[in-house]
């Protein structure tokens, strides 16, 4: 059955066949997976690559003279090239393999320890995931620099006027997510980057939530650092990437010491390997890196334009259906947002709704979504968050709406 919403010929049923997990049941009901913003599901094409790696290529990379090691190294480096091409980085050595977004942020935050002084300021947005707050707080504790917050409004959008006022000669770093995981807001990062650069501040964009929906163009954005995780975009867990402009990556000291990241080691002095290996100490998640490349191939084959259009239709449909439920309030109503709906029902705890939905096989997230400051802003303990992917269907949204109605009936 072709789903022709918005007149795009997008065959969601055939896409769903790529995802074995979508066939399973939970609590005796067909799984409805709406926790995509936490982790996306993995298509057969990516799973096969992982199996193929361990079946045919498993060995350590970058050091062996034997064929297996050479083949594994080639596959891993090809994956780096795929990522480079995907984000349009100028050089492949600007792509650092990490264990995920959190690792990438910590790598940069730690690197800045020697570059900041007490009179410096760093700006964080009110919409950040804890991963993009805590490492910078720790940096400020180490250096004495001051952390300032770009505020949000009731719709869940950043207040850009205030941001402009916060920027000054003292501002050395700005870090903002491309898309908020708790609310789905798409932040105006082009503007944010341009304004930061005017005062000479570097910008890190947390792309954990954007990469499943948007193909970032790091050169066009002129962003200094861009980080993401493979597991949010149909890849495996425990692998991700940090893009950094070459000049910045040269300036930052290595994050971890170990094998792979050295040129020469004596007990007197060690010289470091060149980029990207300087930041890739130890044996990496080789299968994960290769599978990350396969995930990018997969998503590009589906097509980011098609994904965006289809998901937007899902979002519009779900928003209308959910808002028809009496007492339901949606948090995050930005004009620019992705397929995430954070909501609560009057007088009902989000956790109760999530528990009842789980009994019906519907996976949503409840709680503060690792973004406690946002919940504090709205003065709520948390929300129920349904986040959609291109393999979700209107029928699944109908199941969610029915589930929410039932939960409301049982819990009121």
């Amino acid at each position, binding site marked *: 059955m072709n789903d022709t919403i918005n007149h795009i010929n997008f065959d969601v049923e055939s896409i769903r066949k790529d995802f074995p997990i979508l066939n399973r049941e939970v609590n005796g009901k067909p799984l409805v997976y709406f926790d995509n913003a936490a982790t996306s599901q993995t298509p057969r094409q990516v799973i096969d690559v992982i199996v193929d790696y361990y079946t045919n290529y498993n060995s350590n990379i970058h050091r062996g003279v034997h064929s297996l090691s050479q083949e594994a190294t080639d596959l891993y480096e090809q994956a780096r090239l795929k990522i480079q091409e995907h984000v349009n980085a100028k050089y492949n050595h600007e792509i650092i393999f990490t264990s995920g977004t959190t690792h990438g942020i910590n790598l940069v935050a730690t690197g800045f320890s020697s570059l900041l002084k007490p009179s410096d300021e760093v700006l964080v947005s009110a919409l950040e995931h804890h991963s993009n707050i805590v490492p910078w707080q720790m940096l400020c504790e180490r250096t004495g620099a001051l952390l300032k917050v770009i505020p949000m409004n009731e719709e869940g959008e950043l207040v850009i006027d205030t941001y402009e006022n916060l920027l000054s000669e003292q501002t050395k770093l700005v870090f903002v997510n491309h898309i908020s995981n708790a609310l789905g807001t798409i932040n105006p990062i082009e503007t944010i980057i341009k304004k930061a650069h005017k005062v000479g501040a570097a910008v890190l964009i947390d792309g954990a939530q954007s990469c499943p929906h948007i193909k970032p163009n790091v050169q066009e954005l002129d962003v200094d650092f861009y980080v993401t995780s493979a597991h949010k975009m149909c890849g495996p867990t425990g692998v991700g990437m940090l893009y950094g402009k070459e000049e910045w990556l040269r300036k930052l000291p290595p994050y971890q010491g170990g094998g792979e990241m050295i040129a020469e080691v004596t007990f007197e002095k060690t010289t470091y390997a060149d980029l990207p290996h300087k930041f890739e100490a130890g044996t990496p998640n080789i299968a994960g890196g290769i599978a990350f490349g396969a995930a990018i191939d997969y998503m590009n084959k589906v097509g980011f334009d098609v994904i965006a259009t289809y998901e937007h239709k899902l979002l519009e449909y779900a928003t209308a259906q959910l808002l028809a439920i009496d007492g339901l309030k949606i948090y995050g109503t930005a004009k620019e947002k992705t397929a995430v709906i954070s909501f609560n029902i009057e007088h009902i705890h989000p956790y109760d709704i999530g528990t009842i939905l789980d009994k019906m096989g519907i996976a949503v997230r*409840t709680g503060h979504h690792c973004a406690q400051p946002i919940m504090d802003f709205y003065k709520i303990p948390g929300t129920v968050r349904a986040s959609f992917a291109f393999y979700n269907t209107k029928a699944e949204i109908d199941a969610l709406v029915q589930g929410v109605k039932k939960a409301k009936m*049982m819990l009121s």
Partner: protein
Amino acid sequence: MTITEIQNEIIDEFGMFDDWEERYQYMIDLGKTLPLINEQYKTQDYIIKGCQSKVWVHAEMNDDKVKFTADSDAIITKGIIAILIRVFSNQHPKDIIEANTDFIDKIGLKEHLSPTRANGLVSMIKQLKMYAIAYQTQLN
């Protein structure tokens, strides 16, 4: 009634239900009947960690028996607390310490609750037992 007798009574009650909906509806209704904790105890000092919803528990001892009151901001959690309080409140500390909690499996709660919620349940029981241990040392 002894703790075991109360537990058996609860197992019988839950045995009447055919499906999760009835079981949960019963728990939700139990939650609504939970005698309220005195507001003065709904503070950080009385909160139990390990629950996504907030849980407050207060204990006091009268006539060598521990009396628990509790509350939560989530109704299903309140239902669970109501069951636990029915089992453990107004019992001797020693009996509370020695009680096993297999009945939770038998009424399908542990396996039917999400893992994080199950952890919350575990922390709740641990907290009730901690209070009992504290009161037991007073008696010794």
